[in-house]
């Protein structure tokens, strides 16, 4: 359960921020990204854990990159085949799963020293912990930024100012800087919780 809150990859370990911020303007790409990263982390951990006794320390980074790149190519081809529009929206960020620090971080920190099954579960849990933050960001940004969720309208059209209502979308939510500020706020709230006092710096 650690990686979901206390050891969350995004807000505690500060890993894999790039994609967490870039794909969360809407909920759907955020969810696809979560699924892709979870699959890749789990299997990268599993494979590296199986290989951990046979790979010399000096070349392990290259081996890791090859294993991860192989998995990401599979995911990319599957996304292109089944959810082409989302795959277009994610553009380069699918490829960037390769350099997502969660992968290398978990492989280095966990999979190289543990048995395959625990490594697989660790990868899964970290993927889901990463995804939780993505979904939170996607939820807030899509709801406030475009008044819809998963592409479905939540705020009724009649509320908008141009239709004689009182409501306007917060355009700032759709822009990159707001994602950063939202993550900052999530970290703030998370560390303010009583059980997480020990995460506070200095």
């Amino acid at each position, binding site marked *: 359960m650690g990686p979901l809150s206390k050891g969350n990859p995004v807000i505690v370990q500060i890993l894999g921020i790039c994609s967490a911020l870039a794909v969360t303007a809407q909920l759907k790409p955020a969810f696809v990204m979560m699924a892709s990263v979870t699959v890749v982390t789990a299997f990268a951990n599993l494979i590296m854990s199986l290989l951990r006794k046979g790979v010399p320390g000096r070349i392990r980074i290259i081996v890791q990159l090859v294993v991860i790149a192989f998995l990401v190519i599979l995911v990319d081809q599957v996304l292109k085949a089944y959810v082409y529009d989302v795959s277009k929206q994610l553009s380069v960020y699918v490829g960037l799963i390769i350099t997502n620090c969660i992968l290398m971080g978990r492989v280095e920190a966990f999979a190289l020293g543990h048995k395959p099954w625990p490594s697989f579960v660790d990868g899964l849990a970290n993927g889901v912990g990463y995804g939780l933050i993505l979904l939170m960001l996607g939820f807030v940004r899509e709801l406030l930024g475009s008044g819809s969720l998963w592409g479905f309208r939540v705020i009724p059209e009649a509320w908008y100012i141009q239709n004689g209502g009182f409501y306007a979308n917060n355009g700032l939510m759709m822009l990159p800087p*707001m994602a*950063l500020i939202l993550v900052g706020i999530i970290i703030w709230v998370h560390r303010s919780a009583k059980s997480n006092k020990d995460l506070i710096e200095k």
Partner: protein
Amino acid sequence: METLNIFIRSIFIDNMVFAYFFGMCSYIAVSKSVKTANGLGLAVIFVMTVTVILNWLFNEYILKPGALGWLNPDWAVGGAHTVDLSFLSFIVFIAVIAAFTQIVEMVVEKFAPALYNQLGIFLPLIAVNCAIMGASLFMQERAYDSVVKATGFGLGSGIGWWLAIVMMAAIRERLEYSEIPAPLRGPGITFIITGLMGVAFMTFLGISL
């Protein structure tokens, strides 16, 4: 002229950190002092420029659809058997980046030990810096038609990243003396400040080049 536009755009308007969030992991982790931030930033400029050029060559002559036409006309676009190796681009790009950083590390260690002490520790970090990989992927997606433009893009993006991390480090050095709510200290406030800097950088958006 167009190359100059691409160069300036990639420093200010399409800044790697503020517009695309590339390389955030090392950006947050290494921006604690200006000196180390500067070292990492310079290493990123160098590696990014060279890997974008190398990957452009790989993409142009091996990977993109019909790129192998120079070997056999049948394999070109419109030929009898068009060869499309673009699905291999992720693995080729990351291999080029990893191999290049490894080589640079060895060369620098051998011939310039002083420089190695300054930059060497950052080089392995750079292999997994998303900014480097991101630059190559953007280069591929935007399909720059000459190596000069690709170079301008790589150099500009590197400088943009260096600028961002040095500014952030300078601000964080000052932050040491300010009273920040305890749970916000460290990464929290760094994110929020980066966001505010991003808002400032968005003022460049209106400029059309």
